[in-house]
């Protein structure tokens, strides 16, 4: 049951160029989406999120785009830096958590990004 799919297990990009990481989802009830970055032996680190009422959210070099009709979101990193090399996870929530919380997160399998100098 893959409600959140990251179909590219890996991506290699040259330093300074744009990295585009993609994520698809199947559950139309998802209304909050997040991207996390993970280095080996560390926990996921929150990068950026987007609510379903928006189609774009930007934070510095990171921009997340949401296309609800296609059930697709993407993370753009520009310019890419060698320190961005990590595994990137897409996660989604239906916001149905108790007490108004975002509820549990459903994660994709991750995309390993390698940024080459």
């Amino acid at each position, binding site marked *: 049951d893959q409600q959140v799919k990251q179909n590219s297990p890996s991506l290699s990009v040259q330093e300074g160029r744009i990295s585009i990481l993609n994520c698809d989802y199947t559950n139309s009830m998802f209304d*909050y989406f*997040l991207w*996390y970055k993970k280095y080996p*032996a*560390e*926990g*996921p*680190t*929150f990068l950026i*999120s987007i*609510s379903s009422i928006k189609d774009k959210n930007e934070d510095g070099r990171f921009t997340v785009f949401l296309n609800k009709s296609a059930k697709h979101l993407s993370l753009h990193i520009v310019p890419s830096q060698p320190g961005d090399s990590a595994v990137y*996870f897409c*996660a989604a929530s239906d*916001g149905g*958590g*108790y*007490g*108004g*919380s*975002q*509820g*549990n*997160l*459903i*994660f*994709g*399998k*991750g995309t390993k990004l390698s940024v080459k100098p």
Partner: protein
Amino acid sequence: EPEVTQTPSHQVTQMGQEVILRCVPISNHLYFYWYRQILGQKVEFLVSFYNNEISEKSEIFDDQFSVERPDGSNFTLKIRSTKLEDSAMYFCASSGFSNQPQHFGDGTRLSIL
């Protein structure tokens, strides 16, 4: 920047033994979570905790599992009688009020022998 801290970083336990994984969430957060990641697989939700009670749990979180917030700072996950398939990275996370992102600790690697 405030962090979620987890101890120990690695726990090795004999099958059938009880294990307690500990977490200190970010101090002003209200929502607490446990996730796990079996090697090579996705990060999976286990349980969420709010207002001193479980608010949601997955199918994985059976009677062998329990969570507790014994004091104002710690949040623990107990596995009563460990099985080989419990071997995984266990991540604790916490979030503030409503639609704020969850912040994760660095995890505890649990190895069941």
